[in-house]
């Protein structure tokens, strides 16, 4: 608790510190590559025959996903707190890579925990982390995926809390993480809102983003929350079926519960044991969801729908061949939803899809699942 309180204090001070904000903005601009473009997907729009589809290109950020927005923010906080060791959990590896990247940039020791099942399916990222100088520790317990990596990261943190910062990668965990991580990703929606007004002269009818922990989605949603006519749609991992254990759709059967310091909707059995989950995409494969998403859903401000493994895989090929963009499997879930939704919308309406990351890391899985070569 003391570490969380220290983090909250430092974060609140940093929010008001102009030098901190300027430095963060400069790194986002000159190092990470912000602002990211908002791209009008003309061929995809034509093909689906409905709303005008814009793609927010978080896949073009340095390291290949939105994760670095948060890593730069927390990295500067670590510097401020005078700590020298950073640990992180990672599912698909993108957060691990972004953390390793920022640790190399700022000169911190870096240890990333990753489930051994995830290490197998996201090999490229494991190599990248090690090349960047991070130690990657495989986690063999439990389902050997994201939630097990988080358990191990938390155990490391409570043991080494005096010297170490836990760089959590999503809008999960105890306070202040959900708020802080969301704040660091708000830039996505802030940019997209200005960009769409410039491009179309009006706000979108809908915004679609995939939801694992929920960082890219809350990042793009947040600045549109006040625009009540803009529908916010989060897409969860529908996996391979509806049975508990075959998917990671928290709003399909999840119940309020506490996991890893957060109270939110959690996929669990009748006795309160946390369920194993499945998704073809490692980054969505998590049994709980960011509490802010739970609140938005309960308030009716955002809706959450599933996309299956098969739909996500199909959407990957579609986007690759229609627009020349290979999305990460996570982001492909959002693309899968726009495939269903755009045809039902008016041609004059605009929809923005957040492409949260690129799909290079998924080549192995894509090869296993698609009949290409």
């Amino acid at each position, binding site marked *: *608790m*003391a*570490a969380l309180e220290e983090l909250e204090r430092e974060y609140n001070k940093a929010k008001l510190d102009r030098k901190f904000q300027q430095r963060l903005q400069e790194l986002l601009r000159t190092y990470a590559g912000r602002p990211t473009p908002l791209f009008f997907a003309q061929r995809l729009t034509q093909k689906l025959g409905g709303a005008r589809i814009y793609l927010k290109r978080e896949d073009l950020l340095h390291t290949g996903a939105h994760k670095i927005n948060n890593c730069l923010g927390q990295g500067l906080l670590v510097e401020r707190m005078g700590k020298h060791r950073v640990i992180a959990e990672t599912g698909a590896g993108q957060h691990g890579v972004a953390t390793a990247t920022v640790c190399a940039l700022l000169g911190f020791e870096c240890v990333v925990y990753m489930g051994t099942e995830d290490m197998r399916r996201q090999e490229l990222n494991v190599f990248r982390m090690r090349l960047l100088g991070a130690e990657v520790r495989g986690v063999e*317990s*439990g389902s050997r995926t994201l*939630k*097990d990596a*988080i*358990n191990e990261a*938390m*155990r490391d943190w*409570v*043991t*080494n*809390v*005096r010297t170490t910062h836990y760089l959590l990668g999503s809008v999960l965990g105890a306070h202040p993480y959900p708020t802080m991580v969301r704040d660091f990703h708000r830039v996505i929606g802030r940019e997209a809102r200005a960009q769409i007004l410039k491009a179309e002269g009006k706000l979108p009818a809908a915004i679609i983003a995939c939801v694992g922990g929920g960082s890219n989605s809350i990042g793009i949603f947040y600045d549109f929350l006040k625009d009540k006519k803009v529908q916010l749609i989060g897409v969860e991992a529908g996996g391979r079926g509806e049975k508990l254990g075959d998917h990671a759709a928290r709003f399909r059967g999840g*119940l*309020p*519960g*506490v*996991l*890893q*310091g957060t109270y939110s909707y*959690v996929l*669990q059995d*009748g*006795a*309160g*044991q*946390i369920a194993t989950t499945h998704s073809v995409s490692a980054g969505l494969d998590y049994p709980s969801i960011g509490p802010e998403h739970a609140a938005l859903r309960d308030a009716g401000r955002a809706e959450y729908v599933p996309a299956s493994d098969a739909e996500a895989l199909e959407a990957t090929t579609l986007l690759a061949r229609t627009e020349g963009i290979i999305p990460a499997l996570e982001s492909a879930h959002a693309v899968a939803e726009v495939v269903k939704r755009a045809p039902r919308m008016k041609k004059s309406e605009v929809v923005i899809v957040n492409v949260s990351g690129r799909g290079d890391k998924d080549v192995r899985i894509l090869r296993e699942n698609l009949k290409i070569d």
Partner: protein
Amino acid sequence: MPLTFHRKPALVVYVTCGDPNLVTTREIILAAIEAGADVIELGVPFSDPVADGPVIQRASERALKHFTSLGQVLTLAAEVRQHAQSTGLIIFSYLNPILRMGMEKFCMVARAAGADGVLVTDLPVEESGEYLRAMKSNDLSPVFLAAPTSPDDRLQMIAEASRGFVYAVSRTGVTGARQKLTDDAQKLVRRLRKYTKLPIAVGFGISTAEQFAEVGKFADAGVVGSAIVETIERNPGREAVAVAEFVRKLTSVSHRPPVVS
């Protein structure tokens, strides 16, 4: 059945219920009580035991293989209570299984089973309002964890909310036996003393009679968990006997002879 520590240091024994199975757990607990344990923590296995090291993690996985549940642990508590009238019984669980059962229902059933108190590993005192009300109305003692990194104002909050005893975690880290106790433990107990008259039990890392005796010099009780669980793991087929031997070794250093049950 109030939580009383009859000797110094008193011995609090933790077991993961259901490892290897509930019947054996019952035997182990009764043997530990007979050998001199003052308080038993009945551990409820959980899928994500984030505060536990590898020994208790493995025990939880084994217990969950046959779906050991909170409900079954409460039934076990009732059975133990029938055979042991003066031993303290604490239900030791992560929060989610309790939430799933319902806070009020859980407290009622725990009380009816004869439990004295509850320790919820991942429920910080700041979030414990509903829990404390349910515990109070069911006459159960809430036990909280105090850590070496807890600042004084937090220790005071923990002390004021606690009943029965305060659990002082001996070091930053997760459960697991260690070669030696750090200085953290003694400093923490000294700081806690300013805020509470309740007995203070030190836990995490105690695995030998020497360490247990050491704890007795500055605290009222020692909690032995991983070392007991590991004894169980290493003695398949004779778990209760092995635990009783270990408990006798530990309590041999206490300042009063064991109470004959």
